[in-house]
């Protein structure tokens, strides 16, 4: 199972910080993954597509044409605000 992580306001929209998704043998890109999510939940889908959202795969920033696998951790990060 791939692990999806939603931080900040994205977690509120997703109804939880973490979600598992099965990507067995898929050649899905991050963009395609977001499209799949969008089919079920347009609000979350368009929030994930926002230009301010960064995608990290296994803790490394990635473009949305990155192909993801079933063992990956895929994190969606809205603008940060520490301190």
């Amino acid at each position, binding site marked *: 199972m791939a692990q999806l*992580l939603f*931080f*900040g*306001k994205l*977690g*509120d929209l997703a109804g939880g*910080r973490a979600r598992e998704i099965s990507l067995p043998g898929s050649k899905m890109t991050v963009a395609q993954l977001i499209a799949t999510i969008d089919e079920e939940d347009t609000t979350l889908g368009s929030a994930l597509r926002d230009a301010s959202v960064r995608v*990290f795969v296994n*803790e490394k920033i990635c473009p949305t044409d990155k192909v993801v696998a079933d063992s990956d951790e895929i*994190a969606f*990060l*809205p*603008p*940060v*605000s*520490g*301190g």
Partner: protein
Amino acid sequence: MISVCETPFDPSEHISAFDKNADAAGAVVSFLGKVRGKAGADDVKGLHLEHYPGATEKSIQEIEDAARRRWAIDDILIIHRVGRLKPGEPIVLVCVSAAHRRDAFEAADFLMDFLKTKAMFWKKEIRNDSEDWIEPRQDDYKDAERWQWEE
């Protein structure tokens, strides 16, 4: 040292230990950020702070490394709270020791600017009748732009 902690911390304890270790340093600058009970006219009941365990610490380490490349620094301490925070509680403590005060001041200032705009934290402000995810203010981005960030 970098620490992300889930429970309240006592800043003076950490500052005290940091000072005692900073034996050769001529200058120690510390910054303490606390939850304010007001945001504009509204009362703030608290903050909720999230992080991305592992990745957040890495993002802070990158900020520390950038500061060390830029200034002659002896030691750096960064502690950042996550979880539910009440007004008056410490959010962030940054300590920098150096031979000279200008290095210590500028590095602490730099660290705070990027802890605000680059470190992986997300902050929700909890008021009596609403909750809002906070993003850095324009001023925060402007502060961070004063420095040329070098990867």
